[in-house]
């Protein structure tokens, strides 16, 4: 069992009032809050160890390098990557996908090749592929979904062919909460010879991921959605794929030997980490992962399910509320619209009740187009949210409904 009160005490930001009411933070799909241990770790780096990595022989640089590389190992173990060479630090999910689209895509995609994505991708898993298609003459194909917000697996199977070179799929949709059957999708994609990129930006904080067991070619996620700092994320790629890929950016740290005639690139993972990285961020990311590990997915998964069910039942009984996304397999996201009240107005009204939700298209405009809504309101939950906070959400929604009655 998880002690929610104890967990809440780890997150300083939660303990404040807005407009005289206790903050209810339900925008976790946008970014999660940070526990004290992560804040302290980042602070410790700047106060005691700050220096550049992989460059100095002095003590501080050695300490910083050790902490940075220790994070790599922590993250490798967390996702069960085969080797820490497969763990590449980036600015986040967006940069990780752009890296793959640019480097792997540039080397492997040609005219009339097909890239398959799904209707529920975040813009960051749509636009880089569109850009690649534009450059190469490849074709972007989209797996459709049903009204519940589940992928159409028959359509998926029929869209796959030997022309399919890459499948890009979101593990958990940020707009709908849907958890996609990636294991089966990966197997089917591999059967036609496609490489698979899994967008784990939403999923990674909510469920265990074993990249080897799932046979994932490229896994991408962001630290800031897993209680870690902003501006840092990871690309986990199979070593053979990464070895064969050209560098993404050129600069310091990614080289072994530079002359004006030629440059010999550094080994993995450094080949893809040009320039001074977000050292504090990476070190904080490692601490965030240890924080999750200390609580354990054995505790997190059932607890978050209970809370989502609690919220879903209230949503079902709330007059004038329509849920957007009711997949059988979903987690932590309650996306909805309300009769006669635009989500943007809900966002403002709830904010004055100190309830923070997201209103908008959630960087998934095709999902909005599918449901023919301009936007949705989205409450998204995390390990520190409580039933009382769900009650506060619905009390605030009642207030909004009354205002527009």
């Amino acid at each position: 069992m998880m002690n929610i009160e104890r967990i809440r005490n780890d997150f300083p930001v939660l303990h404040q009032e807005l407009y005289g009411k206790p903050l209810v933070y339900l925008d976790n799909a946008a970014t999660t809050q940070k526990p004290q241990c992560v804040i302290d770790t980042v602070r410790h780096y700047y106060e005691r160890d700050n220096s550049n990595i992989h460059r100095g022989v002095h003590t501080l640089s050695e300490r910083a390098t050790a902490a940075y590389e220790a994070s790599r190992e922590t993250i490798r173990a967390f996702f069960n990557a085969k080797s820490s060479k497969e763990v590449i630090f980036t600015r986040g999910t967006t940069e990780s996908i752009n890296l793959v689209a640019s480097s792997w895509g540039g080397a492997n995609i040609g005219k009339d090749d097909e890239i398959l994505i799904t209707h529920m991708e975040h813009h960051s898993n749509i636009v880089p592929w569109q850009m690649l298609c534009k450059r190469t003459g490849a074709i972007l194909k989209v797996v459709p979904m049903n009204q519940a917000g589940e992928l159409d697996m028959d359509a998926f199977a029929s869209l796959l062919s030997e022309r399919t070179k890459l499948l890009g799929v979101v593990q958990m949709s940020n707009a709908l909460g849907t958890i996609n059957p990636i294991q089966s999708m990966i197997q089917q994609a591999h059967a036609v010879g496609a490489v698979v990129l899994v967008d784990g930006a939403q999923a990674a904080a909510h469920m265990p991921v074993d990249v080897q067991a799932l046979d994932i070619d490229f896994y991408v996620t962001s630290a800031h959605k897993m209680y870690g700092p902003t501006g840092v994320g990871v690309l986990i790629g199979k070593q053979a794929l990464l070895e064969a890929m050209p560098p993404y950016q050129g600069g310091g740290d990614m080289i072994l030997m530079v002359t004006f005639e030629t440059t010999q690139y550094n080994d993995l993972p450094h080949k893809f980490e040009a320039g001074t990285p977000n050292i504090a961020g990476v070190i904080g990311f490692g601490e965030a992962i240890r924080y999750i590990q200390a609580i354990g997915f054995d505790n997190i998964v059932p607890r978050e399910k209970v809370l989502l069910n609690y919220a879903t039942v209230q949503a079902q009984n709330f007059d004038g509320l329509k849920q957007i996304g009711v997949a059988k397999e979903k987690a932590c996201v309650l996306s909805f619209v309300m009769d006669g009240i635009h989500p943007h107005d809900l966002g403002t009204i709830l904010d004055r009740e100190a309830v923070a939700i997201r209103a908008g298209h959630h960087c998934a405009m095709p999902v909005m187009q599918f449901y023919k809504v301009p936007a949705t309101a989205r409450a998204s939950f995390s390990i520190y949210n409580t039933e009382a906070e769900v009650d506060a959400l619905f009390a605030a929604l009642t207030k909004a409904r009354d205002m527009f009655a």
Partner: protein
Amino acid sequence: MFSLGDLYQQVIIDHTKAPRNFGKLEPCNHDAEGYNPLCGDQLHVYLQVNDEQIIEDITFEGQGCSISTASASLMTEALKGKSLSAFQGLFDAFHAMATADMDDKPNEEVLGKLAVLAGVKEFPSRIKCATLCWHTVKSAMENAAQSARTE
């Protein structure tokens, strides 16, 4: 501090529920599309301007939050029958009101009923909702090919 009630005044709720001058205008000699990428508010304004540079008729269509809908509705009421130079004056006054300091009183003499939207300045993320329709009319008058954006 402004309260929610200052933003969502009854007039605004009324205009949200029953927007005035809603629909396509025919004939019309100026029109433009406005879009707020942050929240997906989308509206289209249609104007019929005569040779004396008077706005003979003006309507709007689209979907948006209550602030953008009410603002567009109130705007069409305010602009009907006005000259283009009067439009510019109202545009400036409205913009000033929406971005004014908290303590500044709106210029009710110029703005009239539009002053009910003064509350948006206390809600920074909502200012663009109120100003979108005005930018859209401006671009319609300039016959801009591009759809209007809130700066």
